[in-house]
């Protein structure tokens, strides 16, 4: 290597955190692993998804875990035309806020609609899980949400 050649080298900085999830998010992640979407009841019978340990409006402890989905409504979305290597899909997709059936709050996840002209606010979508053997209890157990059958756009 000649001295005039500019030196450069790959340098990766990684913190391998392992986080304790607690009883409520733990139950939610356990649900994902088992192929179910869970929320928690909050003040006035509202259903919070993803679930929290405390009601965000009153600060009171939340209550029972309840199953929601698997379908829901797209409340808002942003199209990603050129996915980054760390994005969950390697093809263009939408980040979307999805209010699952039975829930009063929206969940942030991915919609794989095939194109921005095939997605609109208010569209019905449904969950697509990874195969059971690949699920570990993490958000990535959901591959994506996809347009509900018959929603045809």
């Amino acid at each position, binding site marked *: 290597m000649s001295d005039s050649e500019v*030196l450069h080298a790959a340098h990766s900085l990684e913190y391998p955190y392992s986080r*304790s999830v607690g009883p409520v998010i733990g139950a939610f992640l356990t*649900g994902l692993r088992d192929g179910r979407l*869970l929320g928690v009841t909050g003040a006035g019978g509202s259903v919070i998804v993803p679930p929290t340990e405390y009601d965000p409006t009153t600060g009171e402890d939340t209550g029972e875990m309840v199953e929601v989905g698997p379908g829901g409504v797209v409340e808002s979305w942003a199209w990603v035309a050129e996915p980054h290597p760390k994005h969950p899909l390697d093809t263009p997709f939408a980040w979307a806020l999805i209010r699952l059936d039975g829930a009063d709050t929206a969940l942030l996840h991915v919609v794989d609609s095939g194109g921005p002209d095939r997605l609109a606010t208010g569209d019905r979508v449904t969950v697509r899980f990874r195969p059971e053997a690949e699920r570990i209890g993490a958000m990535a157990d959901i591959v994506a949400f996809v347009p509900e059958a018959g929603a045809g756009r």
Partner: protein
Amino acid sequence: MTEPGSTDERGTVTTLATPIRLDFDFTPGIAQSKFLRGLERGTFLGQRCPVCRKVYVPSRGSCPTDGVPTTEDVELSNSGTVTTYCVVNVPFAGQSIEIPYICAQVLLDGANLSFMGLLQEIPTDQIRMGMRVEAVWVEPEELTPSLASVKYFRPNGEPDAEYETYQEYL
């Protein structure tokens, strides 16, 4: 609250791996490149400040005290003095050296800045401040512009340095 009724043998999820990773393409710049090229030749290269005359190794290209460029290159000795040290007994993720091992600050002869190196060929309970050490390099054909060219430091057999000779560098 109640459990959501997951009853298989894997139990409830209690932890989540959340690694944070940043990938850089690091370019060291002119001054550090000189230091790295020196390592490729099996030598420690530093730079002297034209105002305070201190020698920095590795040099960042300027003197942090006087704020002027360091333009004079200085080749340093292969020997130095342990100013302080730490015996590492605790395993951690990504550890590449067998514990226990010694991590020492070495003040090379002719330098006014110590730098960190691995100390080997001595039991961990015999390390002491002021110990005289020398760098052990990889084989000539294995030298690269990287600190990996220095295998480790080891005692060079000289009497310990007087405290006054390194007290400014602790």
